[in-house]
């Protein structure tokens, strides 16, 4: 028995050795040389990650003497959880995770990455009766559907998200409330699979899922923009980075805005880079979708952003208005308490201090 037991344990020890060696081998975290300034940047598989990707591929960061430690997250929640454990300093994410990062972890919204109102949209099948009526409510001309055709329908959506915000705005525009329809919460990929399998009547998607939906022949019925709400993509700086070394954040933001300028200047060439970025993360979009990433999602250069952030004699800035409407929606849904909204609006988390340094 003695020999067999040692055989068993030596097998195990060998196993660990092999696995640990392989383990480190495959995730060689980039240990930057001490002297160089490193900034940890976090992004998602969205167009608002392109400026950073552009800066890295074109080597702008090395030119400016610092290195971007790029971190990729599938969606908002893991990105925020990583922020909570100080894994990154700056990053871009949707309005909702941005707001929660400010409320929970004291992060600052330092810029707008793009206006995602048009790409938080609702889709129906091509043969759906909802498409018959258009612009029933004069205030919202390009909104399909009417109270009768939408009442009692099942909507597949991701609750507590910008998509949900667009759905409620659409219902309000059609004179309906949440109780008139059946809302079913699903993550984006499940919602798409369910809609394709014939479940539900309307499905709420956001980029890049809505392009895939469009590819399947689904028709866009409404969007945040068409229902009159603005959904900004935000750029976040962690509390530590914003308060302790704003210069480093400013260095990165300068490159980010340079990227946005580049995207505004020649969308065609940027689309190719965007395709490379998506491919690296496994997403394959056709050219039409890539073009839409630029046409449907307006972006603002530094000057425009300063205007958006500017406070005209005490009145809240445009960005603050957008964010407070979103916060109101979350309070009305019971997701955050009014006190948390107050803290968010009063805490000066929406802050153009870095923008001014550029």
């Amino acid at each position, binding site marked *: *028995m003695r020999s*067999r037991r040692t*055989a*068993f344990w030596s*097998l*195990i020890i060998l*196993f*660990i050795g092999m*696995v*640990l060696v*392989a*383990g480190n081998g*495959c*995730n060689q*975290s980039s240990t930057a040389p001490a002297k160089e300034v490193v900034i940890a940047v976090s992004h998602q598989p969205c167009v608002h990650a392109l400026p950073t990707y552009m800066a890295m591929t074109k080597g702008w960061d090395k030119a400016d003497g610092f290195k971007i430690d790029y*971190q*990729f*997250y*599938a969606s908002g*929640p*893991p990105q925020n*959880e*990583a922020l*909570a*454990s100080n*894994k990154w300093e700056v990053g871009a994410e949707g309005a909702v995770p941005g707001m929660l990062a400010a409320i929970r972890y004291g992060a600052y919204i330092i810029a707008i990455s793009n206006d995602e109102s048009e790409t938080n949209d609702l889709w129906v099948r091509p043969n759906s009766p909802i498409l018959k009526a258009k612009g029933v409510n004069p205030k919202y001309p390009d909104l399909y559907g009417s109270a009768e055709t939408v009442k009692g329908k099942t909507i597949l959506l991701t609750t507590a998200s910008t998509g949900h915000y667009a759905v409620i705005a659409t219902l309000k525009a059609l004179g309906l409330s949440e109780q008139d329809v059946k809302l079913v919460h699903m993550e*984006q*990929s*499940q919602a*798409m*699979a369910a809609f*394709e*399998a014939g479940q539900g009547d309307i499905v709420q998607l956001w980029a890049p*899922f809505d392009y*895939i939906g469009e590819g*399947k022949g689904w028709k866009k019925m409404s969007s945040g923009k068409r229902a009159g709400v603005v959904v900004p993509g935000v750029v976040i700086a962690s509390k530590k980075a914003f308060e302790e070394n704003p210069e480093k954040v400013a260095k990165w933001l300068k490159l980010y805005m340079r990227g946005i300028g580049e995207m505004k200047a020649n969308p065609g060439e940027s689309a190719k880079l965007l395709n490379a970025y998506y491919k*690296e*993360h*496994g*997403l*394959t979009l056709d050219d039409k979708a890539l073009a839409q990433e630029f046409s449907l999602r307006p972006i603002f250069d530094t000057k425009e952003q300063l205007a958006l952030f500017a406070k005209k004699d005490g009145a809240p800035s445009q960005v603050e208005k957008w964010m407070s409407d979103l916060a109101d929606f979350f309070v009305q849904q019971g997701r955050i308490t009014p006190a948390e909204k107050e803290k968010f609006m009063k805490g000066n988390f929406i802050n153009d201090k870095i923008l001014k340094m550029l």
Partner: protein
Amino acid sequence: MAELTSRFRPKAHVLPIASLFLMVALWQLVVGTGNFGKALPSPMAVARQFWLMLFEPIGRTSLYGHIWASLVRVLSAFVVAIITGIPLGLLMGWNKKFEAMVKPIFEMFRPIPPIAWIPLAILWFGIDETPKIFICFIGAFVPVVMNAYTGIRFTEPMLLDAARMLGGNRRQLFTEVAIPSAMGAIFAGLQNGLSLSWMCVLAAEMVGAQEGIGYLILLGMDMSNPAMIITGMLLIGAIGAAIAVLLRYAEKRICPWKREISM
């Protein structure tokens, strides 16, 4: 059952392979009826997708890179579960005081789904390899501890008497009688731990992975490409089953005295 693995009689393999082909034929038939439309890909589509993935890399690495990444996560979690789970289970089964202390906490954390651990995993371990291994570990840990525990509790009192008669003290009874007699249950626990660790690899790779079979499946979901999803599922199924056979072989080598009755 023992014949199936220990002696490779040609006849023994006819039925299992036949059943696999039967399954594929049934699958083709169901797709043929067409009432599931494009959402259920045909076996051919899945084969084509698999062939495509063999050559063209997805995300950062090729299919082999993905398989290797998932394999490393599952196996390192499995090994850590062995090193921590078996001693804990054995001690819990053997020492009343230790059991009274550890069991209530263990029983409470046992049913918590691994996915529920993702937020805490990210908060505590960040986003690279460690949280992923932690999630797989959570899956593998539970059955390993449970089986080691029951293995000890079922030690034959007659054997304990025999060892005490031969002059063994309490510690020797533990190492020389209780542990060997629990080996059978321990290996059953390892089988379960391995398959549960595989079941959690997808949840682990929801923590923001860039490579791995789970990542491929999630990608297939996001890109609404059912063929990739099913390829990922079959890959995990095949690799999981292959390692299970390897483990069973290791069990035969290490405990040759056992009468083969576990799956």
